[in-house]
């Protein structure tokens, strides 16, 4: 059970009381075994742009279509791969061949059989065309895919690529049905809005602005599953209204972000409500201050280090994000095995910050710094204001420039900022995500998630190449440690906090948080202990 999020003795008593009440409730009314039937009501916020999460990586899309479409693998909370459509897999000792045995007896929701052809099509045709990053990786590492048997798929590589398994997960790369996508324009394919998958739930209806309804797949390949009859995603745009709906048990689950941070403590103390931070291990969210290293005085590494020393990150977590996180330990999330626990830390130290500024010989008051604040919610606005105050205490002249989300994306993508806050999901191996924030070849003006800082360091670039090519083991761990130390010294991105994602749910919902991407999973073994009202 969580619960850094909920602080103080009174809150602790409330939590204990809530948990006790939920236990009593469940004892009084629980079914002895997993119970089939019922409708699980969830919140869809924002409304997803598409229901094909192979094309749209938006979390709101994954949340819905993760119940319909499936990938080869998923990951447990220790980031170990687990079978989904792949029954088993093996890698050759040289890391150049990966063989996947597929589940038998799987059918698409339209009755067509699922075969290795679908997997080959997905990774040989669909993703190379739609997923620029994966296409780049496949090209660089010479990846090709074939199927020597109807239920066997082999990935051939020209040089080893250690994070391969992480790129084949459920969450990012579901298998696309070849018979519905081959020969079509993938991005405008009508099945992006009414997906046909192999998952435990079948897409039934999407009433835009109101709800998305999924119903039980009676021919699901895991016999006896799923338990639920229906899942309904309600589109509720206002946070207070979502909280009210949860309070009434009209919806049974609130994901992190569905409720305001300031409302979490009250909601978690409601009778029969469970709060947990589990289930986001693969995402490993890291919030950071993005620094444009092209702009003086931010081009000076001592200035960047001084800025991080001057930010009281524990204060930020406790008072701005209501305890939802822990201080960032470095460029990689400490919840993953790729972080070096011995990495030097920038513990809040104003004297040290002032000393570094003096050492740099830079007069920080001479240049005004623009802190670009995107529309991510009230807490982020307060974070920007706190940052401004902290830096002004060191003599910086800071202007907070607030913009809506679309403007923020455009300005950051075009490097039109000095400082800005952003966050990233690590998705297992840092090479697959974090590397794009640091590598010289990713200095492009097309995305806020590229190297918009303008950071260039040949040593770091070489280490990124090394971690990609080296198989998992001590040598790779050592390379990641060296890389993390370089990035931690150069600080084009100042790690602020490792985000925790509190999920609130009514205790009648069982088996909700079981993997490293729990909420976006298929829910094939989720059940309602007592029927939802």
């Amino acid at each position: 059970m969580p619960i850094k999020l909920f602080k103080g003795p009174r809150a602790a008593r409330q939590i204990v009381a809530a948990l006790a009440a939920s236990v009593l409730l469940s004892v009084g009314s629980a079914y002895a075994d997993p119970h089939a039937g019922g409708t699980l009501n969830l919140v869809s916020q924002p409304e997803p742009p598409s229901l094909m999460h192979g094309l749209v990586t938006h979390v709101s899309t994954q949340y819905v279509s993760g119940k319909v479409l499936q990938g080869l693998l998923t990951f447990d909370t220790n980031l170990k791969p687990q079978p989904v459509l792949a029954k088993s897999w093996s890698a050759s000792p040289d890391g150049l061949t990966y063989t996947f045995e597929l589940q038998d007896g799987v059918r698409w929701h339209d009755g067509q059989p699922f075969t290795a052809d679908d997997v080959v099509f997905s990774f040989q045709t669909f993703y190379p065309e739609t997923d620029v990053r994966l296409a780049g990786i496949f090209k660089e590492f010479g990846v090709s895919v074939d199927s020597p048997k109807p239920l066997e798929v082999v990935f051939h590589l020209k040089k080893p690529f250690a994070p391969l398994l992480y790129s084949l997960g459920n969450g990012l790369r579901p298998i696309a049905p070849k018979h519905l996508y081959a020969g079509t324009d993938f991005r405008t394919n009508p099945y992006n809005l009414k997906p046909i998958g192999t998952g435990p739930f079948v897409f039934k209806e999407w009433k835009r602005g109101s709800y998305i309804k999924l119903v039980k797949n009676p021919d699901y390949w895991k016999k006896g599953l799923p338990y639920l009859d229906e899942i309904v995603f309600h589109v509720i745009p206002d946070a207070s209204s979502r909280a009210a709906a949860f309070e009434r048990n009209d919806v049974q689950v609130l994901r992190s972000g569905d409720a305001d941070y300031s409302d979490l403590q009250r909601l978690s103390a409601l009778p029969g409500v469970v709060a947990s931070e589990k289930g986001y291990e693969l995402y490993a969210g890291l919030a950071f201050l993005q620094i444009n290293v092209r702009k003086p005085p931010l081009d000076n590494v001592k200035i960047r280090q001084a800025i991080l020393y001057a930010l009281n990150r524990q204060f930020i977590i406790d008072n701005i994000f209501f305890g939802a996180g822990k201080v960032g330990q470095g460029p990689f999330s400490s919840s993953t095995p790729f972080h070096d626990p011995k990495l030097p830390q920038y513990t809040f130290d104003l004297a040290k910050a002032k000393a570094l500024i003096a050492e740099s010989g830079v007069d920080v008051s001479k240049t005004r710094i623009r802190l670009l604040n995107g529309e991510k919610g009230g807490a982020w606005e307060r974070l920007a204001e706190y940052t401004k105050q902290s830096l002004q205490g060191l003599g910086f002249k800071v202007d907070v420039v607030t913009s809506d989300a679309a403007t923020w994306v455009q300005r950051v993508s075009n490097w039109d900022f000095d400082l800005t806050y952003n966050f990233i999901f690590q998705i297992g191996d840092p090479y697959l995500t974090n590397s794009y924030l640091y590598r010289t070849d990713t200095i492009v003006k097309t995305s806020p998630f590229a190297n918009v800082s303008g950071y260039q360091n040949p040593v770091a670039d070489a280490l990124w190449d090394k971690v990609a090519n080296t198989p998992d083991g001590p040598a790779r761990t050592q390379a990641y440690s060296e890389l993390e130390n370089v990035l931690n010294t150069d600080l084009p991105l100042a790690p602020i906090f490792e985000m925790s994602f509190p999920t609130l749910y009514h205790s009648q919902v069982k088996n909700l948080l079981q993997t490293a991407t729990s909420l976006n999973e298929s829910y094939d073994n989720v059940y309602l202990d007592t029927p939802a009202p």
Partner: protein
Amino acid sequence: MNGLIYLGLRLGRAAAVIVGVLVLSFLLVRMAPGDPALLMAGEAGIDDAQYIARLHHDMGLDRPLPAQLLTYLNQVAHLDLGYSYRNQATVWSLIAERLPATLLLMGSAFVLSSVLGVALGVIAARSQRRHGWLDKLISQGALLLYATPSFWLALLLILLFSVVLDWLPAFGMETVGQDLHGWARLTDYAAHLLLPCLSLSFLFLALYIHLTRAAMLEAMGQEYVKTARAKGLKPSRILYGHVLRNALLPVVTFAGLQLGQLASGALLIEVVYAWPGIGRLLYDALSERDYALLLGVFLVISLLVVGFNLLTDLICRWLDPRIGSGRQH
């Protein structure tokens, strides 16, 4: 002036306003920072310049702005509002899907606020001399409603009637998952509509009360009322046949303006109650820089506002034939 000529002139003016709104909104939307292609590429996890250039081309954003404007006006003239790439649907279909919900909300709020507001305004005006307390109660109550922010009131109503009392649903337009028909379906819609409708009505209800009350009091002191009394007409005939009819002119004018405000007020209420109308469609289109959809919603709202204003003018002319005839001066 002949009634038909008057109608023709008003229609011409309305058409000019619509074209003006189209051109202005097109330019304003394009002047705002933000790029729909970048947003869509970001959602797809793509940072490829070629892909973004292709999106620009598909959306027609790689052409000069005047050419884009001309194309758009030509499209609209052919009743084609374009295609929403983000929603992968035509703008017409998206608006048609959501407009009924907004019209239902606006229409019910309009009827409730105008009918109840006029009735309470009449009661307040009538009771001013004999039952001063009733007039004060209605007037002060109206002031309280007027001063209360509608979104805050909406949240309080949800807390009271949905969370605490559990009498009414908290969000949405219908109960999902229950296959309701006939009367049961109608009552389900009504139950979902009640709180949003009340929240949207309250602000305008107060204005109707004050406006009707003031207009009634003014009309009661007019010479023609004294004449009517002297002629021995029944008080009810004087009140409803003469006083109210004249007092209604400013109320009807206000009603036309209110419909425009209702459309914008509905946006907030639709967000709070998760009501699936075009107000929310507009909000989403704005945050996603979905230009075609944004302009389509602007156009529909403009049509509503201009249409209702036209209707108001015609009703005013019916109530007072001197209007627009050149005889009022």
